[in-house]
């Protein structure tokens, strides 16, 4: 086709396209769109229907039947198809912005409100010991004790659960966020395959290559619906912010307090240390957050100790002392974080 002819054809087609679009914008039917004859039939039938000349039960199904063109082929709209592609090299994804570490000094905020998270609850029993001890009951008992201690020290305390109820891991963090908590402390009891092992350990959120920690986190995260592979992916890209540093500090203080305090009544206790692990319940929070495994239910001696309210009170005192020390440190008080964090309240 000669160049002039093709240009003329293009201009003509463009005029039609533009008119079609003007009609669309103004709510008119496109001029190129031919109504199939039975559309008018449908309109007529609708009018008759509205006048009550036909029974609706007989007519309505026919209104839903496919339109048929004069040729007998299914009627189609005036618009046409899309070209999609295969064998196409997909450009690399736009990288998400990597989180940038933030200087903690820009957040010199006081710790006033503490979120306490008694692990498990409701259908989630947690670990169980032969003595009839169930983790969900022990964690609630300990949390309630911590609450009393902190409230006595003028802290405001919010609890993720106050009774034996099921609360999702995500909702626990969300509740703390909604309440505007300054720190989040999740209380759990451990179960270690080596039944002789005992002691306390405290976690903050982070990735780990340790198979034991991976299994532990997988067990704790079971309710969340996230796989460990998901978590690894998540953690590679999150949490390089000030909260991780503060969470680790909080974990260190609480761990030191637990070990020192409980060592007085539980001589065989092991300091299992502060560790990073991918717990969903911590990921959901927007404040420094830790998960404390305050004893081992798998160890016969510690399970026996946990049956005693006094031992549970020791645990509560140690947790509260650690939290207070952390709060003092944040506010710059000289009696803040130190080696004696666990000795402050008569533990």
């Amino acid at each position, binding site marked *: *086709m000669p160049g002039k002819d*093709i240009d003329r*054809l*293009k201009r*003509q*087609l*463009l*005029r*039609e*396209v*533009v008119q*079609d*679009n*003007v009609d*669309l*914008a103004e709510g008119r039917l496109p001029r*190129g*769109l*031919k109504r*199939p004859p039975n559309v008018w039939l449908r309109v007529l039938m609708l009018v008759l229907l509205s006048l009550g000349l036909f029974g609706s039960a007989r007519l309505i199904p026919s209104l839903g039947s496919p339109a048929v*063109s004069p*040729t007998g*082929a299914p*009627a*189609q*709209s*005036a*618009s*046409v*198809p*899309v*070209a*999609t*592609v*295969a*064998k*196409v090299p*997909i*450009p*690399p*994804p*736009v990288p*998400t*912005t990597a*989180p940038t570490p933030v200087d903690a000094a820009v957040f010199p905020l006081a710790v006033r409100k503490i979120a306490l998270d008694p692990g498990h609850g409701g259908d989630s029993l947690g670990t169980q010991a032969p003595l009839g001890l169930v983790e969900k009951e022990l964690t609630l008992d300990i949390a309630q004790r911590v609450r009393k201690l902190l409230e006595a020290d003028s802290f405001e305390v919010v609890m993720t659960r106050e009774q034996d109820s099921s609360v999702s891991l*995500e909702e626990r*963090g*969300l509740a703390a*966020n909604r309440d505007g908590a300054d720190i989040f402390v999740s209380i759990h009891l451990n179960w270690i395959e080596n039944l002789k092992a005992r002691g306390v350990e405290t976690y903050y959120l982070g990735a780990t290559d340790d198979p034991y920690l991976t299994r532990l986190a997988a067990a704790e995260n079971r309710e*969340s619906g*996230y*796989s460990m592979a*998901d978590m690894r992916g*998540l953690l590679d*890209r*999150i949490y390089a912010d000030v909260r991780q540093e503060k969470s680790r500090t909080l974990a260190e203080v609480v761990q030191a307090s637990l070990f020192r305090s409980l060592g007085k009544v539980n001589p065989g206790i092991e300091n299992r240390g502060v560790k990073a692990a991918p717990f*969903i319940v911590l*990921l*959901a929070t*927007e404040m420094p957050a830790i998960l404390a495994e305050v004893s081992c239910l798998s160890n016969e001696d510690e399970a026996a100790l946990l049956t005693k309210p006094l031992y549970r009170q020791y645990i509560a005192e140690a947790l509260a002392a650690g939290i207070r020390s952390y709060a003092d440190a944040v506010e710059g008080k000289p009696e803040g974080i130190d080696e004696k964090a666990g000795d402050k309240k008569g533990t």
Partner: protein
Amino acid sequence: MADKNNEVLHVGIDLGTSRSSISSSSGERHVIESYVGWPLDMVARKVLKKSVLVGSEALQNRSMLDLHRPLEQGLIKEGSDKDEAAVRELLWHLLSLVGVDRENRNGRKVRAVVGVPAEALRVNKQQVRKALQGAVDSLMIVSEPFAVAYGMEALLHTLIIDSGAGTTDLCVMNGRLPTEEDQRTLPQAGDWVDEQLLRLVRARYPDASVSIHMVRQWKEEGSFVGNSKTPVVVTAPVAGKPTQLDITNEMRQACEGILPPVVESMLDLLSRAQPDYQEKIRNNVVVSGGTGLIRGLGPRLEQELQQVGGGKVRVVKDPIYVGSDGGLAIAMDAPESDWERLTK
């Protein structure tokens, strides 16, 4: 590509079932997967640090997302606010790739031509129009094969067979905007081939773990009709162990499944064209779209044309941007006065 006016940015957008592309008068071209996802929950939102993800990024993070492929079987899905929002996000994302933000703050006039799927209803077109409010100054919505035909200057006596993921659309260009009598839409397209291939492979290798994403990849690498010089051998886990599977016959069977309806529609459209032009049209068949890249498809269609006197089939070799380039050509050719009529 030089712009007529430095203050005006013209763009052509191909809104596809599987992938969507944009071509701009600044010379930029981008293609994305037509997926949009929203973080499933607060945790996912926090991790992903985005309120919405688009394209391959959405696909890669699908476990954390409410993932939508808003165009299916060539249609913009209806009845779901999320799918409407997904179309909006796709369009916004494509525009952002060529430097147009949601408020169009850089001050340029943006004139867009968007190619929409077959069977796209008026309500769908209105959705596209609504979605782009604020981002573009003027908008034209066209049928995708028309954009392809315009870009290739195949506007007269041409049969376009555009086979994408959702539909295969056949459209005779007679020097006018195509009407319903000029076109056919078939559900046998890329997604359909994937489903057939998955079914056939599972039937032959019941112990193999095979997903739709895997067969889609295999199809993109080894699809063919007719005879294959080399066997199609793929790797899939069988009882957890990576195992090589010969799927040559299954691939052939799945791909050849689209031939009967395509050939029947092609011959039907040809027979309905004016007798004077039928030969010209037979010798000007253009196959576009990703599924059109099935090896051997062009020669096989030529073989089928023998029953009506023979013809020539041309396969678009680079289908990625053929639709958006066509849209861009329309955008740049439209006179200023026409664009003014379409300015909001």
